[in-house]
C-alpha cells in the first residue's frame, strides 16, 4: 500500500489527493455518492444537494467539502437516503416532469435517482410553474419545464467549449437557464449540436431536435441497471464520462 492519505466513507477507506473533495476521491475510488450537479470534468457547483453526507456531526455536500485525513464520512444512512428522496421529490414537484412524453425518459439521471431511491410519488404538491421553452436553434430544443438549475450546461460551455453560452438568471423559484445572446435566444448564440454543453444536461432540458426516442423501453440506460451501479451517464456519452 502507498502511504496516500485516506478518509473513511461508510467504513471503507478512500484514498485522496491534495485538493480533492470527498466526492472527487470517492468517484475515483469507484464509490457512488448520489449526485446530479456534480461532474468530474467540471468545477463543483453544490446546488442540487443530493450528495449530502454526514461528517463530524454536520451535514455537508460531498462535492464541495475538501477531503481530509481520517475524516469519518457517512453516506448510505437511512436518514440521508430519506433526505435525498425528499430532495428528488422537491425537484420533481417544482418543475413540470411528464415522463411518459419525455424524450429523455429511461436515460434521465433525475428519474434514475428517483427509481433508485424508491420514489413512487411527489409527496409535495406539484408547483406547475409556467416556463417558456426555446425552439429558436436549428438543431437544439430547450424545454425549461425539466430544468433543475444545475448549471452543468453553463460550466461545460465555459470550461470545455470556451463559449460561455449558458447561464442562470432570475431569483428564487424563478431561477432559469438563459443564453448569452442579445435577444436571449439560443438560436442567436454560437451554440452547436456538437458542443460539449449540448451533451451534458442530466435531464431532458437540452435536446437535439431530431433523432429522439431512439431506444425502445427496456433497452434504455436505466431500464435494468440502477444508477448507483453504473454512475451518472447519458446515452450519448459512450459510458465513459463518469468512470
Amino acid at each position: 500500500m502507498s502511504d496516500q492519505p485516506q478518509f473513511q466513507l461508510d467504513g471503507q477507506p478512500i484514498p485522496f489527493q491534495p485538493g480533492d473533495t470527498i466526492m472527487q476521491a470517492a468517484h475515483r475510488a469507484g464509490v457512488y455518492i448520489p449526485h446530479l450537479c456534480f461532474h468530474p470534468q467540471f468545477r463543483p457547483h453544490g446546488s442540487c444537494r443530493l450528495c449530502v453526507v454526514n461528517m463530524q456531526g454536520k451535514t455537508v455536500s460531498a462535492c464541495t467539502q475538501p477531503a481530509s485525513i481520517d475524516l469519518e464520512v457517512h453516506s448510505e444512512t437511512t436518514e440521508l437516503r430519506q433526505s435525498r428522496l425528499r430532495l428528488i421529490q422537491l425537484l420533481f414537484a417544482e418543475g413540470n416532469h411528464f415522463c411518459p412524453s419525455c424524450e429523455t425518459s429511461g436515460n434521465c439521471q433525475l428519474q434514475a435517482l428517483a427509481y433508485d431511491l424508491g420514489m413512487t410519488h411527489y409527496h409535495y404538491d406539484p408547483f406547475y410553474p409556467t416556463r417558456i421553452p426555446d425552439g429558436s436553434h436549428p438543431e437544439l430544443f430547450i424545454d425549461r419545464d425539466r430544468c433543475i438549475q444545475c448549471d452543468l450546461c453553463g460550466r461545460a460551455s465555459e470550461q470545455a467549449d470556451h463559449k460561455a453560452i449558458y447561464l442562470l438568471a432570475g431569483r428564487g423559484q424563478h431561477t432559469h437557464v438563459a443564453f448569452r445572446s442579445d435577444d436571449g435566444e439560443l438560436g442567436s448564440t454560437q451554440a452547436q449540436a456538437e458542443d460539449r454543453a449540448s451533451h451534458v444536461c442530466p435531464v431532458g432540458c437540452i435536446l437535439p431536435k431530431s433523432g429522439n426516442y431512439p431506444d425502445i423501453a427496456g433497452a434504455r440506460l436505466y431500464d435494468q441497471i440502477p444508477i448507483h451501479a453504473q454512475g451518472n451517464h447519458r446515452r450519448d456519452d459512450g459510458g465513459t464520462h463518469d468512470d
Partner: protein
Amino acid sequence: MAESPFEWLRAKSDFPEWDTDLAEQTLLNQHPAPFRPERALQSLVVLQQQFGQVSPPMQTWLASKSGVTVADLRSLVSFYQFLEPTPPPRYHLRFANNIIEQINGVNHLVEQARATLHDADCKVETTSCIGLSDHPIAALINGHPITRLNRSNINELCQLIRAGKSLQEWPRRWFAVDNTIHHPGPLTSYPYARGQGLALATQQGQQWVLNHMDASGLRGLGGAGFPTAVKWRLCAEQADPVKYITCNADEGEPGTFKDRFYLTVQTDQVIEGMAIAAVAVGASKGYLYLRGEYLYLVKHIEAVLQQWRERGQLGAGFDIELQLGAGAYVCGEESAMLESLAGKRGIPTSKPPFPGQKGLFGKPTVVNNVETLVAATYILQQGSSAFRLVGTEHSPGSRLHSVSGDCRRPGLYELPQGAPVQDLLALCGAEDAHCVQSGGPSGALLLRHQFQTPLDFESPGRGGSVMVFNRDRSLWDITRNFTRFFQHESCGFCTPCRAGTVAMNHLLDRYEQPTTARQKAQTRADMIELTQLMQHTSHCGLGKTAGLPVLNFLNQGAGHE
C-alpha cells in the same frame, strides 16, 4: 455636469430621457472607472437612479461600454428587485410588508392606495422590511422613506399623487426618520474622540490590535456571533498582500434598524472601525455595502467619507468605497454580499474557503457588521476591559436592540448582553406583550413564560431584532408572513431552499384548510420533516433557518391559541 442621482427628494417626474452622454457623465461622476466589468451592477444601480429604469437599450449600451454581455446584465436585473427594465411610473410606492406593518394594517393601505390610484401614474407594490419598523407603516416613494402612514394620511398622500405634486411639495414631516436612542449604553453614549482609536492602532501595530481585540471577546453583531478577533487573525495570516475590509450594511433582517442609526448618527465610528480592521489585517481597500433600501443615506455617508479623506485619515493607505445593493435580502449573507460587491448575482458561495481566506475578488477579506465595527472603534478608544465591564463571560459587551410592534415606545435600546427579555419589555412599555420574536424571523419565538430568557449568543433569544406582539395577534399570521418572506428572498441556488420554501407555503395552505384529522397530522409531520431537511441540506443560512418559524409555530402555537 450631471447632478448626483442620489440627490434628496427627486421626484420621478424629473427623470431625464435616456441619453448616452448624460449616462456616461453620471457614471463617471460616481466612479472613475465605471465600465470595469465588476462595476456592472453598480452602474446599473446608478442608471436606475438617474433614469428610473434600466431598459433594454440602456443595457445594450452598458454592455457595449463594459464588455459585460447583455445576457449577464439581464440576469442581474432579473435577480435584484430594485432594478426595473420597464419605464418608471411617475410615482413608485413600495409598502413594507413585514409583520409589523401587517399588524398595523398595511394590507388595508395597499388596497386603499390601489383603489384610489388605479388610474394614476403610480405603481403600488409591497417589499420586504425596509428597516423602519419603529415607524410603522413605512413605505418607499421613489426610493425615499415615508413613515407613520395610516388610514387617514394615506388619503392625503393619494391626493398629492393624483394632483401630480412633486415630492418637494409633500409635507416634509412625512419623510422624518427618528433615530432617538431610548436607552443608551456604552456603544451609543461614550465620549467618542474621532480618530483616537485608529491612531492608537496605527501606533501599536497589527499584532497588538489583534491581541487587544482578542482580549475584548467581541463577537460579531450581524447575527452569527463569530469572534471578531479570530476572523481578523485568519485574514491577517494569509500570505496574499492584497486584502479587503468590507462592512455589511445590508441590514435586511426584518425588524432590524440599528445599522440605520449607526450609519446616520455614528457614521464616523463605522468608518473608523473599518480603518482599524484594515490596520489589523493589512488591507488597503474597504467596501461599505449598503442595502438599496437605504439609498437615502448615500449622500450623508459619502459626505462623511469625504471629510475623512480631506483630513487625510482615509485615502493614502486605506480608502473606502460605498456600494449599493438593490433589493435582495440574501446579499446580507457574507459570501453573497461579496459576490454582489464583485458585480454578480447574490448567490452564496461554498465554504470553505472562508472569506478570510478567499473572499472579494478571490482575496482574503474581512466581513463585519456595522455595529461590530462600531464596537471595535469603542474597544480601541476605551480599552478591552471597559468593553467587558458589561455583558456575560461568553457574550461580552452590549448591543443595540431594534424594538418594534406592540409597545408604547418602539425604537432603539442598548442593553448589556445577557439582559433578560423582560427588562427590554419593561423599558419599551410592553406590559401587554404576549410573545416576542427575537433575532428576526429565523430567531426564537418566546412566550410570556419565557420572558426571563437572556438576550445573548448562548440562549435562543439572541436579540438584535425584537418584535413584540400582544394577545390579539395571531401566531398564524406571524408564521405566514415569515414563511412568505423566505420564499420571496431565497436566491434559488439550491434545491431545499428554492423549492422547499415554496413547498412549505403549500403545506401551510393545507394546514389552514378544513380537513380530516389524519391529513392534519400528516401535514404537521410533513412541515417538521421539511424544516429539518432544509436545516440539514441547505447551502446557506437562509435556507437552513427558513423553516424555523413553522417549527416555532408548531411548538408554541398550541400554548397560544
